[in-house]
């Protein structure tokens, strides 16, 4: 089980959260101009890295707020978490900041 730190409530078990997939996927700026391929890209294509990944989680049985997590998908290490209005942090040193 992952131990994830909510920016507002602190570290809690994974079971308190809901997973929301890749973070930092902006809605298209000019949606009317998009081709079918560009829409497919926005709707269906997400990064799937083996390593650090910026993703969204929601503290569904806590404060019910969304936030972002940097997590290593190969080691399951939760590197850091941050609020939606904060930029993606530079990758921490090995061991991560929890």
């Amino acid at each position, binding site marked *: 089980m992952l131990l994830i730190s909510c920016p507002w409530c602190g570290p809690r078990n994974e079971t308190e959260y809901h997973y929301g997939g890749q973070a930092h996927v902006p809605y298209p700026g000019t949606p009317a101009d998009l081709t079918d391929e560009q829409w497919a890209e926005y709707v269906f294509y997400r990064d799937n890295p083996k390593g650090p*990944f910026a993703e969204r989680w929601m503290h569904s049985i806590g404060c019910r707020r969304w936030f972002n997590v940097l997590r290593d998908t190969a080691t399951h290490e939760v590197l850091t978490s941050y609020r939606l209005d904060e930029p993606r942090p530079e990758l921490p040193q090995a061991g991560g900041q929890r």
Partner: protein
Amino acid sequence: MTSTALPEHPDWLWRNPDPRSSYDVVIVGAGGHGLATAYYLAKNHGITNVAVLEKGWLAGGNMARNTTIIRSNYLWDESAAIYEYALKLWERLPEELDYDFLFSQRGVLNLAHTLQDVREGMRRANANRLNGVDAEWLEPEEVAKVCPILNVSSRTRYPVLGATFQPRAGIAKHDHVAWALARRADEMGVDLIQGCEVTGFLKDGDRVVGVETNRGRILAGSVGLAAAGHSSVLAERAGVRLPVQSHPLQALVSELHEPVHPTVVMSNHVHVYVSQAHKGELVMGAGVDSYNGYGQRGSFHVIEQQMAAAVELFPVFARAHVLRTWGGIVDVSPDASPIIGTTPVENLYVNCGWGTGGFKATPAAGWTFAHTIATGEPHPLNAPFALERFATGALIDEHGAAAVAH
């Protein structure tokens, strides 16, 4: 229940050759799909100058980690066609490969626990029959006749309100399936190369001409990717982006028991599926873990929930002990259907996105992927499963029939 004895192995299974400098076709991934592809390339198309490259050991990825369920009761025409084709191939493969891999057609029950489940199940059974797939709707008392140890009391939290039943569904001995295909492919001249990881692709403009591996460069006329959970990582190295997400999928087995469970039982609603292996283990699976991951393990609460569901459905399992748990990595596509076909890179073909259900499709995946690689064009059975569908919108939404998992 069929014999509990495992089949005898033939005297030898396959050679262990060093890679040559070039092949007509290189398949990446020596799991069930890669091996079946090589087998049908040789058998159906006479293409035997083929290498199957495997970074670990033969069939040591998801093929070694799955719950071995075979069924074809999918909702949509496209899915029913390809999975039913697979089931028909399964029915003749033990004889064709001359290798008894204990394919046991003991049937599958897909349980309904809500009114919506009942409606979906009846709809799917009717759709199956229109597509020539054997399926029927069973009321709770009929479900109990098929599987007497199943608790169909109305006093449970999620009572069994009925089930779809596919009598021709079943299970097979997964390792033996791989070895059976490997032996025949090897006999026809295919090189099965273990410990050979693809680290990059050789390209000439928009055309793939080979692969880089930890054992050197290998030139190839065509390259077929059949790497399951790692497909997107691999394809990215060739400059191709795939709309799949990799998730851990866990399974577990109990200690050995006398034969008690005569069929396969799946429940989408309470998230568990159970069968009993030939040797006697109860084999159980649940859904994928929600997050992306490549660690070949998942979270304990997923196991806890599936066990709670299993014990409510099968009170007789309450004192069974878990012997071991494990995880595989599955690549899940947005419509819960596979992607089999061409890519934007010429001569590079992809077979991925099977999610939690690739094992059952093994022969049809191999058959159609071999056709696509051999001819450069999809087979009618895999044409609907092209990468282009995500741009055209012609999705094959099988989240319902793909069952518990994703």
